[in-house]
């Protein structure tokens, strides 16, 4: 009977032309704008007013992790801090914290039980909106303000009156007090979207915690001017490990992310510096075992260096696909000194996809990775619709399909139908002095092909890239690549290359796991075996 009622309700909604509403089928971010005004990446503070959060076993854990004479002084300090503990739940401390305070989180496992008890998407908190303009169904800021924990376990809301400005909990420093991030484990309930959401929380600083099992994002920083995400681990979230969106003056540093169904880190809708600087810096990230190591729709103005994006399905993605993301089309990021290697983990096998289909995130084993996006398995960089980026001095090797894919995205796909928008992507990208198809020690580890380019755009160029066969000896399709400054004349896309990817757009984890004509989900053979 229940099933009949459900089906009747569904039929009724469809016949009436109503939207098949629900957060599970649309992007849940609200329309946002870039923050304005001067700001800096917050600096670490080891003094100043603070709240202390702890668990019953925090003292025992501290004594275990700070054993021995050499740690005695540090242990004494930590135990002294522990004596000031007045909170068992992080959110309780956040709610009471004034601006410029610190929240010191003692070792333990934090499940945030009071937050879990708050109904998910409680209609009393507000109605999820879907204006049908491409943003998808979303909760507005007022929703979070009214019910901070209806969609998050921990909500750091910096704007008390919804006027778009941070006026409470600004410059909040939340810090794990263990020896390593995993000593302070914050475990999602697998239903609520974010484990930690910092929203309009200018100066937000998060350090030394491990987030796990978010239904969407482990850490989510939105419309925040000045943020620092440091010494973090984020694992087995349904979509993203650590994410920022329409935020500026930020730093991601010393982050480990793995097991995420979309990307380990996601600096999306990045700051609009248009090649006059970088608003977000990312360094010393190790992102592996995800569907994507890194992704950023409209990932603008970001400087990524000295990081590793290895052993994912694909290493790094930046794109201009989606509407509803401020800052389109993507431009002006830099990747330098990164390792992008062995991105051949196939999360799209029939076995994995079939076992993921028909089960919700809550129902799956906790360490099961189910792909949330389609990617060409075996790829290093996948750059779709990006402009004026600099990719230099990276190590890009052992990606069985391709080291770099560069493709055009016509503006119509992000909802812009003017003639100029159809050619405004995939221009001016520079690939310089990368070492391709070889490890750091110089030994060969070929990519399937170093560069696969749809041949579209102007000003894309390659120079000084090094392979085991010598400088500028990349394997590529097309066979010849323009040297810098590239061809100033706009070139059309190779229609066959563009069309060959279209079938992959029909991928759907529930209804079409292996679209006819899409080759992305078949593991390419290791190049040496070819």
């Amino acid at each position, binding site marked *: 009977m229940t099933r009949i009622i459900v*089906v009747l309700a569904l*039929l009724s909604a*469809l*016949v009436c032309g109503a939207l*098949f509403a629900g*957060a*599970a*089928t*649309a*992007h*849940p971010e609200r329309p946002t704008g870039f923050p304005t005004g001067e700001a800096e990446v917050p600096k670490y503070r080891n003094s100043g007013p603070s709240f202390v959060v702890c668990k019953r076993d925090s003292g025992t854990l501290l004594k275990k992790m700070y054993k021995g004479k050499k740690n005695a002084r540090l242990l004494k300090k930590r135990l002294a801090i522990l004596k000031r503990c007045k909170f068992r739940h992080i959110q309780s401390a956040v709610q009471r914290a004034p601006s410029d305070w610190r929240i010191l989180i003692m070792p333990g496992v934090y499940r945030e039980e009071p937050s879990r008890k708050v109904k998910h998407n409680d209609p009393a908190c507000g109605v999820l909106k879907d204006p*049908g*303009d*491409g*943003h*998808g*169904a979303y909760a507005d800021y007022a929703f979070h303000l009214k019910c901070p924990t209806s969609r998050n376990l921990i909500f750091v809301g910096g704007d008390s009156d919804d006027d778009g400005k941070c006026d409470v909990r600004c410059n909040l420093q939340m810090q794990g007090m263990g020896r390593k991030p995993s000593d302070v484990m914050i475990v999602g309930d697998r239903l609520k979207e974010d484990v930690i959401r910092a929203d309009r929380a200018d100066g937000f600083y998060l350090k030394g915690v491990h987030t796990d099992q978010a*239904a*969407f994002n482990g850490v989510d920083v939105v419309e925040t001017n000045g943020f620092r995400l440091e010494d973090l681990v984020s694992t087995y979230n*349904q979509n993203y490990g650590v994410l920022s969106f329409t935020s500026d003056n930020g730093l991601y540093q010393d982050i480990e992310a793995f097991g995420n169904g*979309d990307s380990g880190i996601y600096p999306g809708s990045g700051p609009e510096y248009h090649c006059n600087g970088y608003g977000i810096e990312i360094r010393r990230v190790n992102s592996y075992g995800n569907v994507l190591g890194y992704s950023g729709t409209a990932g603008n103005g970001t400087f990524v260096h000295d990081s590793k994006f290895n052993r994912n399905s694909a290493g790094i993605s930046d794109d201009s*696909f*989606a*509407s*509803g993301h401020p800052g389109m089309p993507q431009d002006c990021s830099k990747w330098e000194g990164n390792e992008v290697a062995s991105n051949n983990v196939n999360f799209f096998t029939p076995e994995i996809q079939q076992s993921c289909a*028909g089960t*919700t995130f809550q129902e799956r084993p906790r360490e099961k990775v*189910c792909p*949330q*996006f389609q990617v060409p398995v075996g790829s290093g960089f996948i750059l779709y619709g990006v402009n004026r980026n600099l990719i230099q001095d990276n190590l890009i090797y052992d990606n069985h399909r391709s080291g770099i894919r560069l*493709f*055009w*995205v*016509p503006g119509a*796909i*992000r*909802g812009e139908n003017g003639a100029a928008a159809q050619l405004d992507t995939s221009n001016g990208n520079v690939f310089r002095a990368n070492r391709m198809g070889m490890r750091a020690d110089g030994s060969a580890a070929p990519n399937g092909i170093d560069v696969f380019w749809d041949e579209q755009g102007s000003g894309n160029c390659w120079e000084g890239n090094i392979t085991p066969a010598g400088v500028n000896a990349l394997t590529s399709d097309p066979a010849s690549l323009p040297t810098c400054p590239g061809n100033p004349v706009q070139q059309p*896309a190779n*229609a*066959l290359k*563009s*069309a*060959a*990817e*279209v*079938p*992959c*757009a*029909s*991928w*759907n*984890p*529930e209804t*079409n796991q292996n*679209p*006819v*004509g*899409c*080759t992305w989900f*078949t593991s390419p053979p290791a190049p040496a075996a070819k």
Partner: protein
Amino acid sequence: MRRRTVAGIAAAVVAAGAVGVVAAAPGDDASDRLEWTSPPLVFTPPGAEDARILTGELRNDTGEDVELRVDQLVVRAADGTEQDGNGRFVQAFGHGLYGPGGPPAPLMASRFDQARLGERVTVKQGATRPVTVAWRHKASPAKQLVLGQLTLDVPAATQP
């Protein structure tokens, strides 16, 4: 399992709804009034030798605006059988906004997203629109692209 059942029913309802759309569109004599602006390309995608992909640009010469939907796209073989496949009214890959749980079911995103991703488009009289279709190649070659009650000829492969 229940989710799959509901999804299947939902798809059926959408298809049923589509009949109404087609009935309101140009009549039977409107067949063949979609035209290729130039011969489309048909090719075998590298790595998927059992598939064929067609990409081209159609023009609406029906005398009316038409709505084209991917659930009405069918590739018909020379022997009359229908081929298993997929399609989009675009010429390049794109994707939508996916929330927790991945993409919405086909034709379940907002109308805006359906249009930009080429799942459901309105082609004004005289206007053009790209289309890309993939299908499983069988002994009987593809002959016709069926879009509701409208059709387009599929040329023999122009690429090996």
